[in-house]
């Protein structure tokens, strides 16, 4: 690549000299494993390090909605319930002893004894109720506010706004009427309508308890050292652009206590750099390696390479407000004309699974091959499109947001539509996320548009209701296709209030069937994330939320 000059060679030698000196100093990150892998209890006091991207928000559960900050928050906090590794069902290994209801609408939550925050104060019913009220109140501008919108009295905590989004009246209350503290270990939640799977939602970040220290002065505490109740505790605030060091919380009351002495989360702007760093042995874990590295990572890391299914669901939504996509046969035909596997192989090294349902395989109720119109069948697609009066002389406009790596696969979709349906396409990928989203909210898309969903809690409802129910149309929710079908809404309602979990899932599947016939969107891919780690650590597990179970990681002795 580059002609070595005497100067650069001299530099290399000089650097090598400095290295020899500094190696004697040792490193403080505990990243110097001796190469032993697997087996054994590991070294319970050693620490390890992991890649994260820059968290977008302060490390406050009510304000953390993205995965980077979420990874840290999850290590620092433990919620009411946790999810099983096998089938993402509810496990009462968190703070809740039980979550019960007779009518699926009024829930009683009982807490276990003995849970404390990192500052030694006990976790009580108020720790939850006060935290939830704080997050819900619109004046506090917390991103996870809407997770409480199904609790009685939520609306009174929202400032009134006009059509332009200007506040016309402040909130009329600071506490939701549906939340009531019974005693230190018990509180009740009254929902606005029955929701059988409510306990399943409560493992999400938004529902974590907050310490009294935080609630007394939330603004100052947001950027100070976070105080949680989880397996790890922080000793200093997050350092901007650098990361945060956590140590094991010795008084942790849960079963999933940390198996290492601590974890150091290091912020990288570029995941390629992190991947280089883990190869160089200076970093222990990268949980989502760059797509270009997938092919070689298996050879380089061997059994220290792991593929984990994630809840991420990518789709191309139809702008149903556009007359061109009104005919259901047009929507079905376009979906059938796309060879998802070929696109995955060519562009993602096969690392994405072709979607065959509107819900991810990680949730209970997913059915393999449920989507009939997701099966690649170019002849049938062309024949079906010919039945309609779709104008094939007009190109299809394909929308995606700029700078997020969507160019290649959306273009591949366009090529397949052109080859299989004989209709040309144009790419509309010049808008940033900050322009793209408002355009979708304002019904501005003129063709299929890229969108995605990562689940908040492992329920079919989280996909179906959030993305396709009438009540979730913007600005209230994320139904950016503006799909509205009374049958679908009614089935969801019925499912939400079903007497048992199994019956709920069955009804969700019926609702799913309505979607699979109506095809308001083209299901494209389910994601799989690839992780690699150094010889220094073992027992790596990445959950469907793409979060590493940091407490379970052991450092090899």
């Amino acid at each position, binding site marked *: 690549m580059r002609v070595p000059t005497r100067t650069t060679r001299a530099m290399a030698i000089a650097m090598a000299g400095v290295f020899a000196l500094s190696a004697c100093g040792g490193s403080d990150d505990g990243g110097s494993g001796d190469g032993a892998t697997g087996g054994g209890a590991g070294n319970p006091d050693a620490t390890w390090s992991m890649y994260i991207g820059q968290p977008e928000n302060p490390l406050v559960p009510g304000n953390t909605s993205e995965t980077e900050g979420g990874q840290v928050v999850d290590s620092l906090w433990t919620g009411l319930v946790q999810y099983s590794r096998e089938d993402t069902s509810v496990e009462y290994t968190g703070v809740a002893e039980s979550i019960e209801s007779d009518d699926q609408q009024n829930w009683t939550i009982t807490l276990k004894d003995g849970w404390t925050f990192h500052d030694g104060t006990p976790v009580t019913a108020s720790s939850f109720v006060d935290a939830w009220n704080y997050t819900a109140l619109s004046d506090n501008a917390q991103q996870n506010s809407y997770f409480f919108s199904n609790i009685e009295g939520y609306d009174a905590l929202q400032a009134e706004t006009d059509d332009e989004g200007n506040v016309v009246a402040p909130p009329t209350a600071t506490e939701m009427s549906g939340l009531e503290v019974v005693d230190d270990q018990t509180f009740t939640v009254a929902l606005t309508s029955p929701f059988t799977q409510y306990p399943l939602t409560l493992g999400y970040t938004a529902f974590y308890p907050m310490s009294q220290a935080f609630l007394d002065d939330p603004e100052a505490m947001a950027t100070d050292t976070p105080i949680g109740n989880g397996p790890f505790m922080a000793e200093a605030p997050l350092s*901007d652009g650098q990361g945060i060091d956590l140590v094991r919380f010795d008084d942790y009351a849960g079963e999933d206590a940390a198996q290492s002495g601590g974890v150091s989360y290091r912020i990288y702007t570029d995941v390629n750099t992190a991947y280089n760093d883990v190869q160089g042995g200076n970093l222990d874990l990268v949980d989502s390696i760059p797509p270009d590295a997938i092919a070689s990572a298996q050879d380089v890391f061997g059994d220290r390479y792991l593929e984990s299914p994630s809840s991420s669901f990518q789709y191309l939504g139809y702008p149903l407000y556009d007359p061109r996509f009104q005919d259901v046969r047009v929507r079905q035909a376009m979906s059938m004309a796309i060879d998802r596997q070929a696109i995955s192989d060519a562009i993602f090294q096969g690392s994405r699974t072709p979607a065959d349902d509107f819900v991810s395989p990680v949730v209970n109720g997913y059915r393999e091959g449920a989507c009939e119109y997701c099966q690649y069948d170019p002849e049938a697609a062309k024949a079906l499109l010919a039945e309609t009066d779709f104008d094939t002389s007009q190109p299809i406009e394909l929308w995606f947001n700029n700078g997020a790596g969507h160019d290649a696969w959306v273009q591949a979709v366009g090529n397949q539509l052109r080859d299989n349906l004989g209709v040309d396409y144009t790419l509309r990928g010049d808008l940033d996320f900050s322009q793209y*989203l408002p355009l979708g909210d304002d019904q501005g898309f003129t063709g299929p548009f890229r969108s995605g969903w990562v689940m908040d809690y492992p329920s079919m409802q989280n996909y179906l209701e959030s993305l396709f129910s009438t009540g979730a149309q913007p600005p209230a929710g994320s139904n950016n296709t503006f799909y509205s079908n009374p049958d679908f809404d009614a089935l969801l309602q019925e499912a939400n209030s079903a007497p048992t979990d199994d019956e709920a899932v069955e009804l969700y599947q019926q609702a799913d069937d309505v979607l699979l016939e109506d095809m308001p969107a083209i299901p494209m891919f389910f994601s799989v994330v690839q992780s690699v780690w150094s010889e220094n650590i073992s027992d790596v597990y990445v959950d469907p939320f793409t979060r590493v179970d940091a407490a379970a990681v052991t450092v090899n002795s």
Partner: protein
Amino acid sequence: MGRYVARRLLLTIPVLIGASFLIFAMVYALPGDPIRALAGDRPLPAAVQAALRAEYNLDDPLLVQYGKYVLGLVQGDFGTDFSGRPVLQTISERLPVTATLTGVAIVFEIIIGIAAGVLAGLRRGSFFDNLVLVTTTLLVSIPVLVLGFVSQYVFGVRLGVVPVAGISEGLYSYLLPGLILAAISLAYVARLTRTSLADSLRADYVRTARAKGLDRRTVVVRHTLRNSLIPVVTFIGADIGSLLGGAIITESVFNIPGLGRAVFESVQRQEGAVVVGVITLLVFFFIFFNLVVDVLYAVLDPRIRYE
């Protein structure tokens, strides 16, 4: 001299006000809705959006927003980014990092650049001269991104002689990034020095000095070099300013949490307070180092006087 420096420093005030307003206006003019982007695919209730907009004055017209910003600034409040972190804290954490990186780069630039330039200039047409010519051409033409990743892979991952990324190993962590950051400027410094020195060596006063019997070493070091360094000093002075803010690529490749990265990320998120705060600071440094350069002229060339 003192009055000259004072006058120049006073002049920076209007420049800073103008610059900060221009940058503020540019961030304001960016299309898109930063609050909507903050929520991503998730819904954000209208009332919550309104609260966020009010917090960052995003609803106000440009002049009102700027007025509120300056008012805060006068009281020592640089504002906060969207995660509630004070901008002043961001700056105070990142400035030392950027300053160290720039310092290391400038040292490389001066030592390697000037040394290569002087040696090439003294032996024009020699093998070494041609070698410098080829190497500097290569350095200037290879994108920093490529240079950064390749050298990171070779020296960091393969050979393991330098840390791959991060700043956890102190000054040692800055060696490779500093060298990469200096690469292009280093090439310019070498060429500038060579040409300038070669010109001076042909000057009459050099011949006179030699004719008087001064040895070559004294002529080069005392007379020629001092004269020929004036354009080089100008270049390096201006370069300090641009290295401080322009290290975005190097900072990203080597994961160095400096100011360049902060600006880059904040522009993407349209966090006006961070962008304006940091860039105004960089403008100040730029002006300051240019002043230092101007003062240095007088030291290098006694004929230059400032009143």
